[in-house]
């Protein structure tokens, strides 16, 4: 890509290389906003937070170097909420990621059947993701109120005693899963699946039909492999989103009852902005980063076994 293999004459080469230099300069100029943004808002802060993570820093006095104290505090269990919040977050991810991916794929498959009124259905699926999370959360708090909420009223009128939802220690986490799924599956994630489904060549289904494949076989052996790249994309981003769960818990439960929804981000936020322990919060942020990074790397490794990149799309789009 960098230079043509053979060049006719030194003159042409000089002219060409001047052009190439000009082009490279233009390239750097164009991407310079990102380079600056990366240095100022990403790389710089990352290094800074690594340094802060080895200090005690309350913002009232200058940071004081304390070595590995913050990490010891987290991993030794001195901070009793550290492992608990990791566990809650993992439990949340364990439900949210597979369910979210399966439901948004299911919605996309249904919309891809060329039903009449597809636009209307798509809009109805989409509306929850258009609602600001803060508004959606307060709405659900009311809907699921154990005493006066309409959901439990409806359940009781058909003879099912409703759970106490967000107010119950066993149910709170699952309720946060339900609210988060409602608010996220019908949006861009579904559209990305739809894009993937529409990219599957029709001939593949036809030849599968000739081989006598039924609907499930077609889905399992044609659709799934062909959309595996978008499946992977949604899986990775879904997992990252799951680890970052915050707003619903912050507004609806405040982490309770009895820390049942005390997620990692809530722990980090409280440590940093309520207790003003910026050093320890930086350590929490770095631990979080390493976990998410490790998880993403594992997903990429595993993806080599099941993600199928078809050759014909790689022509112009190859990176």
């Amino acid at each position, binding site marked *: 890509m*960098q230079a043509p293999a053979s060049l006719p004459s030194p003159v042409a080469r000089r002219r060409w290389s001047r052009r190439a230099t000009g082009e490279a300069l233009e390239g750097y100029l164009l991407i310079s906003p990102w380079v600056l943004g990366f240095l100022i808002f990403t790389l710089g802060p990352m290094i800074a937070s690594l340094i802060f993570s080895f200090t005690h820093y309350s913002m009232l006095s200058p940071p004081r170097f304390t070595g590995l104290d913050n990490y010891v505090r987290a991993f030794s269990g001195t901070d009793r909420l550290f492992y608990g919040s990791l566990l809650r977050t993992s439990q949340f991810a364990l439900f949210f990621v597979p369910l979210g991916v399966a439901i948004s794929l299911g919605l996309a498959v249904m919309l891809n059947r060329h039903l009449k009124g597809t636009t209307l259905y798509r809009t109805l699926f989409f509306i929850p993701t258009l609602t600001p999370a803060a508004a959606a959360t307060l709405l659900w708090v009311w809907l699921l109120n154990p005493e006066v909420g309409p959901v439990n009223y409806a359940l009781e009128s058909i003879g099912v005693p409703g759970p106490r939802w967000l107010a119950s220690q066993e149910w709170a986490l699952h309720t946060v899963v339900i609210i988060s799924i409602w608010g996220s599956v019908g949006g861009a994630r579904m559209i990305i699946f739809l894009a993937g489904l529409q990219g599957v060549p029709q001939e593949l289904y036809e030849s599968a039909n000739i081989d006598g494949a039924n609907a499930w076989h077609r889905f399992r052996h044609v659709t799934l492999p062909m959309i595996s790249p978008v499946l992977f994309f949604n899986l990775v981003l879904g997992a990252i989103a799951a680890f970052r769960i915050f707003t619903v818990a912050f507004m609806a439960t405040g982490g309770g009852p009895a820390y049942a929804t005390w997620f990692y981000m809530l722990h980090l936020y409280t440590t940093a902005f309520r207790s003003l322990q910026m050093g320890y919060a930086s350590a929490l942020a770095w631990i979080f980063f390493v976990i998410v990074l490790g998880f993403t790397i594992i997903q990429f490794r595993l993806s080599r076994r099941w993600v199928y990149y078809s050759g014909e799309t790689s022509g112009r789009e190859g990176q």
Partner: protein
Amino acid sequence: MASQPLGVSAETTRRQASQMRRDRLLLRIVLYIVVTAVALMFFAPFFWTITSSLKRIDEVITFPPLIFPQYPTPENYLTVFDKVPFALFYRNTVVITVFSTIGTVVSTTLVAYGFARKRFPGRQLLFILVLSTMMLPGEVTLIPQFLLFRELGWLDTFLPLIVPEFFAVAAFYIFLMRQFLMTIPRDFDEAAMLDGANMFHILFLVLLPLIQPAIITVAILSFLNHWQDFFGPLIYLNSTENLTLSIGLRYFQAMGGYAETAEPREHLLMAASIMATLPCVALFFVAQRHFVQGIVMSGIKG
């Protein structure tokens, strides 16, 4: 399917065909029922919000709950503005969202154009870096960013929410825009280049009309993101006159409670929620075709 006699007569074939047609029709009916049921489940909470926003205060607390108000009134939509500085929250949200969306669209278009069209040493590596920041949870950089903005005296202003957007911090949009640009043949650029056009001519006059769906997609996604943002305003904004809608809704949460003595405020909250959601819904309706097309055509391949 019924077992066939040895000589397959025209009659059985016809019967089989009509049986298959009936199966397919049945399948479609089932599909319609399922899709409609699911769509209603997704829409029901929103529907509840609409009807509740039209209820009178005494209709909010009745039990069993009323689905439709007996005396629908738009009054709540006005009361909201008396109870909290809602107009101010609205204005703040509009200002932050509009400026950060402009920043995102302008900066990501330029950067994506650079990555898609210009050859320069280190391009592959830098682009991989862009992709990896897409997977970087923003929380890792949160605290130093907060301290940086504090040093700059930007806390409790809109600047921390707007300025970074002009530096293409939203990597996903760079990726989306670049993918889209890659689908446009270079012939267009080259023809313009022979006519002596510089890179900005090419970008703004030649490519911009062609990548419109991608730009609209990025604009909508970015608008929705900033409009709905909760964490950013929560961290950076403090005084009441600077709050956004997402944060301002908490005022209603703080106003009452489910205690028997508390005055119900759900009808107001629902009216406020509808008003906070309306721009997003309107935007989606206006631009839904472009938006869906933009994502589909960008050919996201993970």
